């Protein structure tokens, strides 16, 4: 398999996944590089049990999790005060309301339990199937389904509690 083709086809997806976990552009680039390097070294062991994207996301999760664990910062989605939300929609042209909604969503997500955050990240944001999510997280499909229902309930609750308070400021946008 040609690594350049693999990188071009999948690196944005891997980067996006890692970025949500580390929330730092340079770090996400470094971990994306590490993910593809590990994939390169382990390409022979890829046995088509999963799609190539799912396999890469699983490696990305391990690489990122190790990085966060070693730094003692396993705080998924924990946005710091100065954190900047970097999505394409958060361009200066975006409406104030849209930014506010997204900020609310991020704030709600980071208040959830880690396993809820992970299942939402994969199922809803990365749009992985139940089977793919189970493979990446090392869970059973039944556990993914159960966690997803509970995670969405918890998110809705947080999201509606989050609204309207004075601190719902827009984060710095680069």
């Amino acid at each position: 398999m040609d690594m350049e083709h693999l990188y071009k086809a999948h690196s944005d997806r891997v980067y996006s996944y890692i970025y949500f976990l580390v929330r730092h552009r340079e770090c996400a680039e470094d971990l994306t590089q590490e993910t593809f390097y590990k994939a390169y070294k382990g390409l022979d062991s890829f046995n088509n049990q999963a799609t190539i994207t799912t396999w890469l996301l699983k490696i990305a999760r391990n690489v990122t999790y190790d990085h966060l664990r070693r730094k003692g910062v396993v705080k998924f989605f924990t946005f710091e005060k100065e954190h900047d939300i970097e999505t394409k929609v958060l361009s200066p042209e975006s409406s104030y309301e849209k930014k506010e909604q997204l900020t609310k969503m991020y704030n709600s997500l980071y208040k959830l339990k880690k396993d809820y955050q992970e299942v939402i990240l994969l199922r809803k944001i990365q749009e992985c199937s139940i089977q793919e999510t189970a493979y990446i997280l090392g869970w059973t499909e039944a556990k993914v389904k159960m966690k997803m229902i509970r995670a969405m309930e918890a998110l809705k609750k947080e999201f509606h509690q989050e609204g309207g308070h004075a601190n719902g400021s827009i984060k710095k946008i680069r």
Partner: protein
Amino acid sequence: MQMDPSKKFDKLFKEMKDVDRSENAKRNTWLALKGRMETKRRRNLIPAFISLAIVAIASFLIITYINSSESEQAAQGLSNEEVIRAVLEREYNGPDMEISRLQDEWLDLQSETETKNQEEYDQLLESKEHKDLMNYYPTTFGEYFTENMLTNLISTNMIFKYNHYLIDNKVEMHLENVKVVQEKEHPNIYRPIIEVSLTNSQGHKIFHTVREEFIFSTSEPGKIGSYNGVKNGGGIELGVKIENFNSYVGENE
């Protein structure tokens, strides 16, 4: 009119997926990755030449040795079944605190040391922390796997794969029973049935059965050329059991 809340969420999730990434950063990451891959290829080539020379010299000595003490050598070597059992002893008795310590030290060093370019990162790879970690894998598993397979296992976390789970959840794992099953039509393939026990700090114990697959190399007899989980073999469920130990207590205690 208010938008349906679930539709609103889906729209927000979609927007969250589209993280902005500069083309420049993407290209730089590719160039750095390409550099590392080329370095690895070069490193693989040099030992190949050295290996050829060693093989040529060693062949003569080995042939002499085999002829003079064939029975003695057979006694020293392990059978395929013994190799499998030795690997499983390592993999399913844990946690292994030494690999955890070495990983911590290496990752701490990476966190503390800023590397601005590939050269600086390559220097970091020469550190004692990295060498100690990378030497631990051949020390523990090296004699059982082909070199290529060991490299793959390290990069894909297929050995010591339950170690983090065990440490994070303060659970000990012990290998209880192994039944090594050899494929009748393919004698190089073995699919052992592995029974392990999990014990938490309160002394509660539960059991779990896993299946794995070992394929012995045809070019390097006695060494494992492929080590795989078996689909629906129970490996994923073992991770779940370790993580949710308390929920399983009483089930098969």
